[in-house]
C-alpha cells in the first residue's frame, strides 16, 4: 500500500485518537503545573453612623482581565505534585524523621490520601491478577474434561460475570455481602458473630473487593486458556504419557508451557485493567476503607467544585504508574521487533 493511500485510510481514526487521547494527555500535564486564578478581592472601608467596617468584594473586571491575559492560570511548578494531596514530600519527610520503627512510618504514610490509594491499588493489582489466572486455569482444565453438551452451558454462565457492567456486577455482590444480605448473614453465622459487618472492617472490605475482582476477571482468563487447550498438541501429551508422566506432571511439563504465551497475554491485559480499579469502590461505598488512584480522580472531578489541577496531577501520576507496569512488555516487544528486522 502506498504511503498516500495509507494516510487517507488511517486519517479518521488517527484524528480521533490524537484529539481525544493524545491531546488530553498533553493538556493534563500542562494543567498539573497551573492553578486557576483566585478572584481579585478589593478591601474597602465602609462607614455608616455606627462606625466603620472593612468590606471585601470581588473585583469582577480585574478577575476577568487576569483570566483573559493568562488563560492557563497561575504557574506553580511542582507545587501541586508535592502538596499534601499528592506526593506530600513535607509530610513524608516529617514522618520519617519522627518515626518509631518502620511500622509507625508506614502508618503515617497510610494517612496520606495518595499513598493510601496507592497501597490499595497496588495490592489489588498484584493479588487479583495472579489469583484470576490460577482460577481461570483451573476452570479451563475442569471444563475441558466435561461432556461436550455441558460445555456450552458452563461457558454461557461463566461469561456473565465478565460481560456485566462493573458497577452493576459489584453492586449485585455488594447487596448480597451487606450485613443484611444473604452472604453477609451467612458470614455472621459462620463466624458466630452477629455484629460482623463488611462496612465496619477494613480487612474484610479489601478481601471482598478482591473477591469481586477475581469473580469479574477469571472468566476472561478461563476463555483464553480454554481456547489454548483446544490447540494442545496431542502427540506431545501422548509421548509424555508413554514416558510414564502422571496427570500432574503432564499439566506441569506439557500443558503449562504450551499456555505460557497466553498467560503473558492475560497478565498484561489484566495488569492494565486492575490498575484502574474504580467501580467496585463506588458500588461497595468503600472509600472509608479503600481508595484507588482512579477513585481520587473521580472524587476530585465530581460535584460542583471541580478540582481540575488536583485531578490532573493524580492523572499524570497514574499514567506514570501504568507506564512503569507496562515497560517490561514494551521493552521486550521492541527487542523482538529489532531482532526481526
Amino acid at each position, binding site marked *: *500500500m502506498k504511503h498516500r*493511500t*495509507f494516510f487517507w*485510510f*488511517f486519517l*479518521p*481514526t488517527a484524528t*480521533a*485518537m490524537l*484529539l*481525544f*487521547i*493524545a*491531546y*488530553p*494527555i498533553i493538556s*493534563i500535564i500542562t*494543567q498539573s503545573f497551573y492553578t486557576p486564578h483566585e478572584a481579585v478581592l478589593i478591601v474597602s472601608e465602609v462607614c455608616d453612623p455606627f462606625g466603620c467596617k472593612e468590606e471585601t468584594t470581588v473585583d469582577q473586571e480585574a478577575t476577568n482581565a487576569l483570566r483573559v491575559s493568562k488563560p492557563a492560570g497561575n504557574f506553580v511548578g511542582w507545587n501541586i505534585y508535592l502538596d499534601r494531596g499528592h506526593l506530600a514530600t513535607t509530610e513524608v519527610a516529617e514522618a520519617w524523621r519522627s518515626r518509631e520503627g518502620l511500622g509507625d512510618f508506614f502508618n503515617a504514610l497510610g494517612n496520606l490520601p495518595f499513598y493510601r490509594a496507592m497501597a490499595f491499588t497496588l495490592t489489588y493489582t498484584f493479588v487479583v491478577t495472579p489469583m484470576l489466572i490460577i482460577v481461570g486455569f*483451573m476452570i479451563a482444565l*475442569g471444563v475441558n*474434561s466435561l461432556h461436550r453438551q455441558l460445555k456450552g452451558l*458452563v*461457558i*454461557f*454462565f*461463566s*461469561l*456473565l460475570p465478565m*460481560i*456485566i*457492567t462493573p*458497577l452493576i456486577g459489584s*453492586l*449485585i455482590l455488594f*447487596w448480597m455481602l451487606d450485613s443484611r*444480605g444473604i452472604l453477609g448473614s451467612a458470614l455472621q453465622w459462620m463466624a458466630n458473630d452477629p455484629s460482623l459487618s463488611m462496612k465496619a472492617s477494613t480487612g474484610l472490605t479489601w478481601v471482598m473487593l478482591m473477591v469481586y475482582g477475581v*469473580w469479574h476477571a477469571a472468566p476472561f482468563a478461563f*476463555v*483464553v486458556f480454554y*481456547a*489454548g487447550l483446544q490447540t494442545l498438541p496431542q502427540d506431545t501429551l501422548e509421548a509424555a*504419557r508413554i514416558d510414564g508422566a502422571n*496427570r500432574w506432571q503432564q499439566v506441569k511439563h506439557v500443558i503449562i508451557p504450551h499456555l505460557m504465551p*497466553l498467560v503473558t*497475554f492475560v497478565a498484561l491485559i489484566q495488569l492494565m485493567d486492575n490498575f*484502574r480499579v474504580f467501580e467496585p469502590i*463506588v458500588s461497595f461505598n468503600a472509600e472509608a476503607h479503600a481508595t484507588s488512584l*482512579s477513585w481520587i*480522580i*473521580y472524587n*476530585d*472531578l465530581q460535584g460542583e467544585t*471541580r478540582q*481540575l489541577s488536583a*485531578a490532573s496531577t493524580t*492523572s499524570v501520576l*497514574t499514567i506514570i504508574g*501504568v507506564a512503569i507496569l*507496562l515497560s517490561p512488555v514494551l521493552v521486550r516487544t521492541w527487542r523482538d*521487533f529489532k531482532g526481526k528486522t
Partner: protein
Amino acid sequence: MASPANRMPRGLRIASTLFIVTWLIMAAFPFFWTLWGSFKVEIDFFSIADWTTALTGDKTKETYGSPITGAGYYGAWVQEEFGRAVINTFIVCFFVVCTSLTIGTLGGYALSRSGFRYTFWLLMIALIFRAVPPITLVSGYLLPFFEWNVWGILPTTIIVLVAINQPFTLWMLHSFFQSIPKELDESAKVDGCTQFQAFRRVIIPVMWPGVVTTGLFSFLLAYNDFAVTALLLSKENQTMVPKIASFLGTTQTEGNVMFAVAAVVSATVPLFILVMFFQRQIVGGLTAGAVKG
C-alpha cells in the same frame, strides 16, 4: 479425550466436577438471587432477622397482598424515569458502534495491508493508548468542553467513547484483516481497481464476521462505561449506569434501594440476551487477540 488411558481416576473426576459446580453457582447465583429479590420489598430482600423472608416474601405479602410486587420497577421506571436513561444508553451505544466500526475498519485494513515500518509503531502507540485509564483523560476534556459549551450532551460523549474505543478496535480488526489473504485485493488491483475500490468490492463482502465481533466489544465498552459517562453527561442526559449510581446517592428513604435493584436487573437483561445470541462471537473475539498476538 476418549482413549481409556486418558480417563480420569474417579477421585479426580469428582473433585473437578465439584469445582466446576461451585464455580457455576458463584457465577450465576448472584444474578438469579437479585432477579428474585427485585420483586420484593426492601425489608424482605435486606432482612436483618431472617434471610428466608427474601425467598418467601412475607413482608411483601403483608404490604401488597402477594409475595411478588413490581413496586421497585414502578418506582424506577415511572417515578425516576429510568426509561429515559435506557433510551440515552441505546442512542450512545448505537452511534459509538457505528462510528467506531466505520473509522476502525478503514484504519485496521490500512494497517494490515501496509508493509512499512511505521505500522508497527502505530500499533505500539495504540497499545499504549489502550493502557491509559480513560478516567485520567477526563480532566483534559472538561475545560475545552465547558468553553465550547458542549459539556453534558450526548454527541460529545459519543465522540469521546469512539476515540477511547479506537486502539482496541484497531488491534482487533488489524489481526482479523491479516487473516484475509492479501491475494484477494491484490488481484482486484491487478484488474484495475484502486485500493479503495478493492476494499469496497472485495474486502467489505467478506469482512462481516470480524466486524460483528469487534462491534460487540465496542457495544460492551460503551454500555459498561461509568467513568466517562458519569463525568461528561449532565443530569438530564444520563445513561443507565450513572443513573443507577445516582439512585445510590438518594437511597436514604426506605424503598429507594429497591429502585436501584430493579434498575440493575433491567440493565442486566440486554447483556444476558447478548451473551445468549452471540456467545460464539464473544468467545471467538476474546481468543482471537490472544492466540494470534
